[in-house]
């Protein structure tokens, strides 16, 4: 139970950052916190009480935890870092064009310099 609450809290705080903050770097930090939370949630779903790690050892035969979520999370972690990198490079591009990474300022600049088609 505690693990579920902890993992979901991380996701929730990440969502809170996305909903309320305007700084793009900050928003992406929030998303990466939420990603950690998601990974923790998946692993907790696969936990078995008193289980051992899903690696066979010679002469040992104990109950194991669910290996499937672990495989999924391995994939999810790598996907997370890939999207983070791509998103951050777009943020750097935003900074290069607008001189700022505050989303509300960027929106204002877009509206201001628009050719009347907004």
């Amino acid at each position, binding site marked *: 139970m505690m693990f579920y609450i902890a993992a979901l809290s991380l996701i*929730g705080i990440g969502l809170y950052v996305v*909903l309320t903050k305007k700084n793009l770097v900050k928003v992406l930090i929030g998303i990466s916190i939420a990603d950690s939370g998601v990974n923790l949630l998946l692993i907790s779903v696969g936990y078995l009480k008193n289980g051992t790690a899903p690696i066979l050892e010679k002469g040992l035969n104990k109950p194991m935890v669910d290996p499937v979520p672990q495989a999924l999370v391995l994939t999810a972690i790598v996907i997370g870092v890939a999207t983070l*990198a791509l998103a951050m*490079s777009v943020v750097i591009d935003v900074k290069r064009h607008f001189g700022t990474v505050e989303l509300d300022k960027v929106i204002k600049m877009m509206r201001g310099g628009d050719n009347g088609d907004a």
Partner: protein
Amino acid sequence: MRLKYILAWIFVILFVGVVAYSLQTEVPFGHDLTKLAKYYVDNTARETGIPNFVTAIVVSYRGFDTLGEVTVLLLATLGVIGILPWEKHKKVKKAHPVLLWGIRIVFPIILLVGVYIVIHGHLTPGGGFQAGAVVASAFLLYMVSLSAHLDLESFAFTESIAGAGFALIGVAGIFAGGAFLYNFLPKGNLFDLFSGGIIPIVYILIGLKVSSELTEVVSHMMKGGAEQ
């Protein structure tokens, strides 16, 4: 503006409460193994011939996901190259000699750790992704401390050959056993270093690909893109 924060907090608390409640009532923490997990725990060692079940699932049962995942990393690399193109000629600062010697000693050790992790990926915890990340962080250390430039072209070649190797081993499976990524090599003895058929080979290719992709991504993030 205060209202926005209060609403956001209410939303977050509701989200956490509702999801945690329904999870705990329907999928209690530490519940019994699912149907899928039972099957894997009982049959993995026999079907794939390796003791690390996570590796077995990542590379063999769900190998197609892993192929997709290295593609995602490739996409991140491509996106970063496209958005922040690499500039070739920048000044290289001369590093302090102590740092230089420190790196020369530490760098091969980290690389060695990475190689160990990937080679024993099917026996002990670890494998291609972890090793890739370790090797990439070694290169990161190298770049940051010496502010040196890596020859990214060779990383791109390593990555492309490793990736194509992975995909083509998969295609070879179609012709050898009728299914993509079919394990067509002899599986050997459980716990041996040379066992598991194509699994260690594929995991080494994944390690090469992940490490070179992550290095490319990080170096482009560090220096790519012309400032205006």
